[in-house]
């Protein structure tokens, strides 16, 4: 627990927390939302939550990471709920890059498909498929059971396959 007797120890503790986890959180936030600025806002807001409630962050690196990931996903979910219309409908195609590349197109497509998923499901897919975190690790980070994680992965893969692999819709089982 981050306990600050006179505020000073809490600041030092939070500084260490920020230095250890800000890159990882930004990478996750960047994968969860399609916008770099939004990802930066999410990361800052996550650490601000830790600053406002220093006693809520548990001790230990893995516990700290789990708490931060959970806070980030919850923030993502809050934003998702506030902009429900935008997340339900396929996002408007952004301005075409000056030099369209397959990678950029693929990125936009993937981000659009991920944006349709609920934040927690999206987080499960990103953590497991892109970051290689095992199901048990995803469950610990998100604060849910492994069964729930497997369910989220099953549903997310189905939806993503429909968006990203339209020519294989009939083969899903």
């Amino acid at each position, binding site marked *: 627990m981050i306990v*600050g007797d006179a505020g000073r120890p809490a*600041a030092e503790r939070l500084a260490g927390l920020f230095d250890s986890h*800000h*890159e990882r959180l930004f990478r996750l936030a960047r994968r969860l939302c399609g916008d770099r600025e939004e990802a930066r806002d999410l990361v800052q807001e996550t650490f*601000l939550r830790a600053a406002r409630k220093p006693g809520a962050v548990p001790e230990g690196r893995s516990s700290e990471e789990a708490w931060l990931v959970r806070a980030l996903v919850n923030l993502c979910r809050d934003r998702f709920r506030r902009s429900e219309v935008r997340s339900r409908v396929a996002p408007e195609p952004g301005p075409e890059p000056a030099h369209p590349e397959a*990678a950029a197109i693929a990125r936009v497509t993937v*981000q659009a498909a991920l944006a349709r998923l609920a934040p927690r499901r999206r987080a499960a897919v990103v953590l497991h498929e892109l970051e290689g975190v095992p199901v048990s690790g995803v469950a610990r980070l998100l604060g849910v059971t492994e069964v729930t994680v497997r369910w989220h992965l099953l549903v997310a*893969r189905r939806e993503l396959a429909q968006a990203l692999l339209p020519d294989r819709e009939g083969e899903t089982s």
Partner: protein
Amino acid sequence: MNESIRQRLRAALRRGDPADEPGLTTEEVQGMRRTVLSAVEEPGRRRFLVPVLATAAAAVVLTLTVALALWRSHPRQIAPPERIVTVDKPLPTPSPPIPPSPSVPPVHRAPEAPVEPPKPPDPAPPSEPVRPRGSERPRQKRPAPRAEEVRLASAPNVPSVAEAPEEEPQPRQIQFSTPGGTRVLWTLASEPIL
């Protein structure tokens, strides 16, 4: 979902993975760090204010409680005695000192006014005090007075009253002392006052 589709899906996701993009710049990191660490100091100020406000509120409540208690325990305003009667004629020897009530100051005798010792009290002491003419004070309910004490309504702070010894041939007398120590003697004529 068969494994091949899963593999293809994973590949598609990794192709669109934005993690390859550059992360936060040094300026962005430093700015974010400053913002986050500055938010930590505010709770300290809040923690400082909370006990101060709590103490101030407790002091206000305590002051109000004490003021209320004092207001309730404060006796009723003493009406100035309506009349102070001075006795000209020689008075009988004063009654022996009456043991004062716990909350009442003792009666002070005036040395220049000897009073006769009291006779046995009346079997039926008066239920209400004898008032000088013109008193407008209403009757007041009170517990049965002690034999040696009669409280006068016109002077509620009268600490103790010695019942005037009854002498049929002589006029009745009532004496009392005010809180200030003034001794008052009332001599009442035997004839009824109309």
